[in-house]
């Protein structure tokens, strides 16, 4: 790839701050998706991702392996989300307690309505998981990471991560099967 991460990082470190925009465009969607699933609140997720990206820019020279920038950015964002969860204010509404997302309009088909309900159900089941299991499930199944990359992001050992993913699947499956039955 012409503009691979290491090249862009080198440009930024050489003084081309605008090149950081390439990295934002490249990783923002995934980081926002990850943070939103972790925090259950899109506004808090946007704050966490923005803070993480500014922090990444400030400390870019500390990125020890620019070819693994994605893992580094997810690590910073995950850390920021954990800090947020630790000091979470009571006014934040976790998804498990939030109203179902905007449901279909009356003109929508039953299939769309059914899908909205399914999304709400899965979101609630995911939000009910402990943060570290939720994180492991999201990184594995939504961000498509290998266990090795997840270890780089979370700092946890691979057997620990496998166990978290397995437990998250068990909890999700139990919640989903209750409804399906």
């Amino acid at each position: 790839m012409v503009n691979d991460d290491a090249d862009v990082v080198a440009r930024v470190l050489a003084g081309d701050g605008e090149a950081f925009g390439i990295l934002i465009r490249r990783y923002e969607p995934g980081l926002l998706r990850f943070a939103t699933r972790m925090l259950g609140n899109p506004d808090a997720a946007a704050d966490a991702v923005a803070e993480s990206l500014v922090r990444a820019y400030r400390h870019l020279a500390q990125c020890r392996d620019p070819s693994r920038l994605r893992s580094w950015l997810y690590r910073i964002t995950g850390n920021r989300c954990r800090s947020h969860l630790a000091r979470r204010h009571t006014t934040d509404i976790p998804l498990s307690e939030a109203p179902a997302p905007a449901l279909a309009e009356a003109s929508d088909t039953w299939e769309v309505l059914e899908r909205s309900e399914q999304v709400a159900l899965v979101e609630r089941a995911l939000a009910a998981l402990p943060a570290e299991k939720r994180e492991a499930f999201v990184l594995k199944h939504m961000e498509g990471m290998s266990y090795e990359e997840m270890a780089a992001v979370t700092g946890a050992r691979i057997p620990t991560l496998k166990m978290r993913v397995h437990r998250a699947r068990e909890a999700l499956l139990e919640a989903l099967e209750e409804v399906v039955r």
Partner: protein
Amino acid sequence: MNPIDPRLQAALDGERDPAELPADLREAYALLISAAELLEATPPPRVSVANRVMAEIRQIPVHVPPHGSVRRVIRWFGRPRAVTLRLRPVWTLALAASLAAMLLLPWQQGSVRNPGETEGIANFVGHFPGARSVEVVGSFNNWSRGLLHLSDDDHDGIWHGAAVLPAGAHEYMFVVDSERWVPDPLAGRYVDDGFGAGQENSLLFVRPSAAQP
């Protein structure tokens, strides 16, 4: 919570062909995969943070490390080199006398300049047998490579160097062979690098020269 059949976990981890699962496990497999796909394909409403981030980083002063050629010159002067001297025997005696005199004098800080009142000298020592290069990066040089090389003139695996730094606390790491970031095992104090994952930077405290005895 009922444990999931290990065959199903292996299929979900991509280590087993889901088509080989018994019918009930295939059903559970499909349920979990469709749940994950449903979440992935239904991103929550969001607003891009790109403009906000770029506006903020434009306010941050740009640190540009020395230009490549400048860095090469600094490196050239900072690296140990073999120097061959061809001397007449009479000069050899004079040179030996000079060297003896230098060794008898109190140790000076080599090529490191004298620190100001609010500065001090930081000595770095690391044991890295077999290393081809060792350098120090830290908060004092904006974690930039190529600015503070250690040397191992006698090839005993002990690398050392010194620098004049502002008095106070500084975080740092050794970079071995240009790729391996290693905390200083002799630092004694460490601080979280702030990026999670439990990695730590070494911490040193530089005393101002005015406070030195």
